């Protein structure tokens, strides 16, 4: 059984999925961050590939992307860093980024490299599902990379089913239509949306992201979904000055653990 499927086998998996930008805070921090996250309670990791014009992202991820690129991060280098991934860790890892750098690298070459590093899935928010279906589906299958699609509160029920049918591993629900790192916490509209999703018959486990920054919002999401995705809040707390980047403290706080 594939790592992602195993992780999300039962509905109450309470998986914490942490997103960070590769190359931030420093160029070679990628593998250390993955190890620290695994050790301190993350169940799944999204490695963000920085892009010059991240138009779906708010200020925090924009800034981490800018610095990562300034540090010299690029696709070749990321794969170089991830080569050793499966010798040190078995935590599921997916890559997330914008389509253009992947297209320039070459979709087939990208998937094949990702696969050889032991990457489990790929999230490309600006890859339209229709284009995925007509051009790339067999490449993803050949290289055993799971495509993961996003849904939003504005996504119509019929389209939710369409995106769910194409996704593998999990379906990524953003809590509100917003750029990343927006308002944190949830109101009754969010809860009604989560309720609707929880009662929708989905093929995939559901992960909810956007607006999760603390234990309270995390626990709220666990009531409706198999996992919660935390990005901007984590990146904001990354502290370059300490050897552990402040990760243990952040994770303990997020998970409401007193060491």
């Amino acid at each position, binding site marked *: 059984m594939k790592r992602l499927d195993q992780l999300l086998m039962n509905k109450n998996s309470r998986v914490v999925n942490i997103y960070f930008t590769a190359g931030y805070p420093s160029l070679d921090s990628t593998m250390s961050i993955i190890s620290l996250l695994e050790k301190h309670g993350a169940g799944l990791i999204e490695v963000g590939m920085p892009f010059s014009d991240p138009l*779906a992202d708010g200020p925090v991820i924009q800034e981490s992307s800018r610095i990562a690129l300034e540090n010299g991060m690029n696709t070749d280098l990321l794969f170089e860093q991830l080569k050793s991934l499966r010798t040190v860790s078995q935590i599921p890892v997916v890559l997330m980024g914008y389509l*253009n750098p992947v297209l*320039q*690298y070459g979709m087939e070459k990208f998937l094949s490299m990702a696969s050889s590093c032991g990457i489990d899935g790929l999230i490309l928010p*600006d890859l*339209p599902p229709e284009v995925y279906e007509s051009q790339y589906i067999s490449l993803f299958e050949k290289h055993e990379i799971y495509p993961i699609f996003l849904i*939003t509160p504005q*996504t119509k029920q019929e389209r939710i089913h369409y995106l769910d049918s194409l996704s593998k591993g999990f379906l990524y629900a953003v809590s509100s*239509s917003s750029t990343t790192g*927006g308002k944190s916490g949830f109101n009754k509209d969010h809860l009604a949306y989560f309720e609707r999703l929880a009662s929708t018959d989905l093929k995939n486990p559901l992960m909810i992201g956007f607006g999760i920054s603390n234990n309270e919002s995390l626990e709220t999401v666990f009531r409706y979904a198999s996992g919660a995705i935390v990005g901007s809040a984590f990146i904001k707390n990354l502290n370059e000055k300490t050897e552990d980047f402040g990760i243990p403290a952040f994770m303990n706080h997020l998970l409401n653990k007193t060491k």
Partner: protein
Amino acid sequence: MQSETLNKRPFHSDASGFYGDFGGAFIPEMLYANVEELRNNYLEIIGSADFQKDYQKLLRNYVGRPTPLYEAGNLSKRYGARIFLKREDLNHTGAHKINNTVGQVLLARKLGKKRIIAETGAGQHGVATATVCALMQMECIVYMGSVDMERQAPNVARMRMLGAKVVPALSGSRTLKDATNEAIRDWINNPESTHYIIGSVVGPHPYPDLVARLQAVISEEIKAQLLSETGNPNPDYVIACVGGGSNAAGAFYHFLDAPEVKLIGAEAAGEGISSGKTAASLVVGKKGIIHGCLTSLMQTEDGQIVEPHSISAGLDYPGIGPLHAHLHQTHRALYYSITDNEAIKAAFELSETEGIIPALETAHALAVLEKLQLKTTDKVVVNLSGRGDKDLSTYMKILESR
């Protein structure tokens, strides 16, 4: 005969918004509902008698259309051909941009939107948006790169006087691309109340087609005016500057299927195409995605978007509308790269020979004239996309250093 060529329409977008290899809608799901709503409704709305009645009336009485097609005698003498200037600079607010904003604000109203956002480079699109929003009493927010706010300060003041909120874009090179990023982020964060008025034939489908249709009035008028002036609706050349490419799209539109009309676009070469400080996307770009559109894009080998450079804020964009990428690839249109200095020279030449101060963007189109081998019988239409008031501070600096 004509209907046969019209039926094929090889230079118009298909149902998915592709012009040949270029176009499409490469957008995150967060934008899907907004873009879908527009895509499902725009053709029906802008084709409706109701919309057309309001649109035509405003174009006539508020914008001041039709704009003149002026046969420029002195310029004609200089270049040894019949040179006609399509005077889009005489539109209300001083550029072609308002043709689009009148249409899109009417469209937004039909879609029940209350809030309008826009990006702007030179500020002409921002002013045109703010103007129509004031007219129709809609809330208006304009994103503008902080570098452009400085070099196009008069337009910032105009937008503010018109009641718009001007928000500086502070990322990247702080120009048009970055303003567009911010506008798209705003739209993502306001998925229901807001209509985004893109100012050129760029962005995800249906924008390139929508904006081209709203600018097509330019070539519609050129045809009628040339017919009555010369007995033939078709010129030998149509020349227009290309930032995203909306004034060029409008000037080319009704000639696309008439191969005898040579179509020429002028891209901004900045300090030169191999200087590293350029905005000539067709020359130095490769196929890539910007703002939801697959087009010719200035980018690094790693697929990061490269910061463009042009003296003209309105042409300072690392991509280009997919229509133009397609016309370029199929050789239906020819594109010249015009440097900052060539544009400045052309701007002064038009001012001194015809008494018309053009926008810096427009000056790029005028600079093509001396590169063509023209015959005395050739009829050449230059689309005079905008007037130069907004660029006076740049022009003054050059005057002082002469």
